[in-house]
């Protein structure tokens, strides 16, 4: 999964520490999400979505596509 968190956070002018405090997680967690080392839980992704006022799928890009039925 590809994260756009860094780009979105920077447009808000927030540091990693500020965002971590707003979300109630550590700065290391924000850094790991931004560097695609850690996929956040659904509750955390939803909190990010609420905080930035955008859908989760705009913050995290999943390149998975459903397979067409073989019929």
């Amino acid at each position, binding site marked *: 999964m590809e994260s756009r968190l860094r780009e979105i956070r920077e447009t808000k002018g927030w540091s990693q520490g500020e965002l971590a405090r707003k979300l*109630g997680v*550590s*700065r*290391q*967690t924000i850094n*790991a999400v931004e*560097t695609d*080392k*850690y996929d956040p839980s659904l509750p955390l992704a939803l909190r990010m979505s609420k905080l930035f006022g955008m859908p989760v799928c705009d913050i995290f890009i999943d390149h998975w596509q459903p397979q067409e039925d073989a019929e």
Partner: protein
Amino acid sequence: MTSEATAQAGKTKKMVLQMIGGGIAGGTGMIGLNHFLSLNTLGIDRLILAAIGFIYVMTGLIVLTGSLMPKMGAKMLNVSDEEDLLEQREILLGSSLMLLTFGVAQIMLVLSGDGKMFPGWAGAGAMLLSMLFGSAIWIRDRHRYDEMMMKLSLDASFICFCGLWLVLVPWGCLAMTGLSAAPSATAIVALFSGGYLLSSVVAADRVGLLAPK
């Protein structure tokens, strides 16, 4: 050189210096420990357990220093700056005390038994007390861990379990069928203790905590 390349070179330099510092401190400490406690007379399995205990003690001391003196700690530990340490001070203090007591208990265990520095009950008792102490710290601190740290702990436990399963079950099978000697009690303690240490490093690396900062 671009500013990004300069920053990266700085991070790498810091990490290399940390590694050299750790190597020198570890090597000196182990030689000192061996000198005062005559560890080389104890046999290879006890020596390995003592070395693992020493790594726990050293890690505990470094983390304790880092959490008590964040400015100095930021230079010694792989963190972005002192704010990282201040933010997690309570967790780090708890972890460092856990590491220290467990490491000291392991060294005591190595030096316990018939004809050794401590009576057998002292080493076994120290280990049991350190495990109870560690459990109490974990129960106290578990709400302070955020989701990634919880996942890291679970990952480390899982990696450790798989590693031990892969080592101990075949070893046990070979011993049962008389194809090898059975693992000694010391080897079992060393495998669990060293295995968890190694697994924690692997789990931390997987979420980028070991990347140069």
